[in-house]
Structures are given as C-alpha cells and as structure tokens.
C-alpha cells in the first residue's frame, strides 16, 4: 500500500566551515570574500 505522505529526502547542505580537520583562524574585522555565484562582500 502506498503511503499517503511521501517524505522529501533531506537536503544536503555544504559545510559552512572546512572539513578535513582544518583549524580556521578568524578575525573580528570584515575580511571580504567572493562566492561562486559571483557575489562579493
């Protein structure tokens, strides 16, 4: 019997921080970077 509600598969979210055990050094200043959609801020 078919279920009434089909659950959507969970969206795969890219990690916000690097994987592979990298330690991220942060600064309180606004550094500025560009993202793959061409947006820079």
């Amino acid at each position, binding site marked *: 019997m078919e279920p009434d509600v089909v659950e959507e598969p969970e969206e795969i979210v*890219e*990690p*916000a*921080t*690097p*994987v*592979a*055990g*990298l*330690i*991220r*050094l942060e*600064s309180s*200043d606004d*550094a*500025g*970077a*560009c*993202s*793959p*959609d*061409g*947006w*820079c*801020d």
Partner: protein
Amino acid sequence: MTGSVFGRAAEPILIDIWSDVVCPFCYLGHAVLAEAVEQHPHGSAVRIRYHSFQLNPGFAPGEAVLADDYLAQSHGMPKAQIEASHAQLASRGAAAGLDYQFAKAQMVNTLDAHRVIHLAKAHGQESAMVERLFRAEFTEGLNLADHGILADLAAELGLDRAEAVQTLANKGYEKDIRADLSRARELGISGVPFFVFDNKRAVSGAQPVELFRRALDLAWEDRQTQPA
C-alpha cells in the same frame, strides 16, 4: 629555539591558495599575504601554491562584459551601491599598493586564465602569472577571456607565447583545474580567497595582515615543537 634547520624546521611553510582572477578580494588577499610573508622573520621559508577556483563557471566562454554591468544585471545591485562598495575596496587596495580601476574591470569565464596559470606553474612562474593577471583585470581592464591577450601576458613573463596559444587551443590543464575545484569542494570552500597553511590552518577572505602573520607564526611554531 635552537636554530636547528633539521627536520620540519628545514621544510618551507606551505601555503595553498584558492582564488580566481576576477575576484577583487583575491587580489587584495594576495597582496596582504605577500606583505605578511615579507615581514615575517622566516618569510623566505614559504612556498605558495595557487589553486583554481571559478566565481562564474557558467559564464559564456569567450565573452566579456563590464563587471559593473554584470553586477547590476545579475544581482540587481544599484549602481550607487556598486560604486560605494568599490570605493571602499579601492581604499583598502591602495593601502596595500594596489590600483583598482573597477570601471574598466571585465567579467569573463576564467577557465582559460587558469590554464595559463597552470602553464606558468609548470615553468616556475606561478605567482608572477597570478599577480600579472590580477593587474590586467583590475588595473588595466584587459579581457582575460581573449586568448591573444592571455598569450601576450604569458610571453611578458618569459614564457613561450606559442606554447601558451597551443595550451589554450588544446584546452590544456583541464585535469589539473578540475582537481583544484574538486579539492575546494572537499574542503568546503564557499568563498575565495581561501588560504591553507601547512594543510592545518585555514584563513578565509582578504583578512588583515595581522591574521596572516599569526598564521605564519603558528606554522613556524609547529616546526619547533613537532618532530619531523
């Protein structure tokens, strides 16, 4: 510190950088990192490797539009906001010795520019090529999708122009570029410039010189405390 140059202390500090030649913050980050390396007491023991990253991989190959027009059209950014943003970045750039001429900068698909960088890398001219392409983009407003211009810039650095033309015509270094992009995805890089020091610490964005100095200090300290 003993001053020993054996083991890890004898190895260069390795800095891997993901960037794109149409990324204004990458140009700034490149300059600020260079300043930090120059100031660092062990700056001569640094090895930099550039990796390809594309801001607009879907941009039509061979085409070029003014970057300002691209921003206005693709992101709906008002001209006044673009100009204010550029003025702020130009000011930061000037402090780092860069001459941003945003009104002339052109948006292109940078795949071919990355081929030329990889060609330069094969001839030990990687950093010089990256720097030359940044200046061509942001100061001179050259079209970095034009094969003739890319070949001229390669020749300017002493590379064989004919080899550059052939590399571009044959879509050379495709595998290397794809490997760079794939590694960026593995690392979860969501923006550039992105710097990795000794495969251990990461710096994202055009950070202040102090943060790059700190990253260099930590990498050097590791050499004194960890065995080879």
